[in-house]
């Protein structure tokens, strides 16, 4: 089930980290280019709304600042997703404290895509987005990582802070909910 290309990716990440630590700032740029889009997709899919840029940038800044704590036990991307997820949770908490009711629920994903919808205007895409809006925040996180990023349950569990079994259950529940929504 594990792919050889994944190990190559991981090795590349580790090489780039070593190069950056040795003073090669271009290696940092390459690392950002390798993972920024995936982080942006994830942040967007779980309701980061208009702050995707900030979340992605903060994720990288924090990751590079604490790069020595990255032991390579998981892939760099999984580690980055973990950091991004924590940042998003912190933002939600601080928003809640300020009284801004920004729960990541029903309509969060659509706001990101509203502008895009006017251009794309594809009925299937809209229905799928609506189906995913019905998922719980955790289901959406897991589903986004599993289907959008192709992560294994192990990687998802590491990112989300749960078990592989729980991640699997969340994925299949999400899949069932989407099918039911589309069948209605």
């Amino acid at each position, binding site marked *: 089930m594990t792919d050889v290309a994944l190990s190559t990716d991981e090795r590349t990440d580790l090489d780039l980290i070593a190069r950056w630590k040795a003073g090669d700032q271009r290696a*940092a740029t390459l690392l950002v280019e390798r993972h920024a889009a995936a982080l942006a997709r994830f942040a967007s899919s779980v309701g980061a709304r208009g702050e995707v840029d900030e979340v992605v940038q903060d994720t990288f800044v924090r990751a590079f600042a604490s790069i020595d704590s990255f032991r390579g036990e998981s892939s760099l991307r999984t580690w980055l997703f973990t950091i991004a997820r924590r940042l998003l949770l912190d933002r939600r908490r601080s928003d809640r404290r300020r009284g801004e009711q920004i729960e990541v629920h029903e309509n969060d994903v659509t706001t990101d895509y509203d502008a895009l919808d006017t251009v794309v205007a594809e009925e299937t895409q809209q229905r799928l987005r609506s189906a995913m809006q019905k998922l719980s925040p955790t289901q959406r996180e897991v589903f986004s990582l599993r289907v959008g990023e192709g992560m294994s349950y192990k990687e998802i569990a590491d990112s989300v802070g749960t078990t592989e079994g729980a991640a699997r259950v969340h994925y299949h529940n999400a899949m069932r909910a989407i099918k039911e929504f589309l069948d209605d």
Partner: protein
Amino acid sequence: MTDCPNGEIRDLLPDLLHGRLDASDRTRAEEHVASCDDCRAELSLLRDLRSTLRRAPAIDATAIAAAIPAYRAPVRHRGWGGWRAAAAIAAIAVGGTSITLVNHERGTAPVTREVDVLPKKTSPHVPPVAISTPSEPGGQTPAGAERIAPDVAPASGVTEPVSLAMTGGATGELSDRELSTLLNEIDTLDALPSEDVEGAGAVELESTR
């Protein structure tokens, strides 16, 4: 849309979509999908969902990379562990020195088992006081000292007392109560078992009545 009863293959479909299966699993999954309408439909749905999920705002990677400072190796601070180790070493050194000095003052025997108090000028109403402990080696009592046997019998008949004889004049001027206190303190310093100290105290108190 119905679910295929083959949960194992359904579990692999996202990996098949992302090309993350090894050769044998990929072949197995592809063969199953080719013959299963439910899995084929689910795989198609997953493909559409992935396409939807992968639409995200454009990210300026160059701007993000510019915000990343150059690497700085972590500075190792001397934490509590180092401080505690240094304190432990100091404590051991001080303790060892103290023990050496105490033993040196007592002569060759490392542990004092008997304390003989020999006032140089014995006042008539203050008899000499000797305190013996049960495990002390036997020995000679210096001249002028009157040994008062404690309630507890010595463990060995052959003894060589290590005396802490107070021959200085100052101690001879002490009152009975002060002398008693001093003896108790000396015994405490010797770290003798508590029953020995109590016994010695009892003997001393009796001797002063």
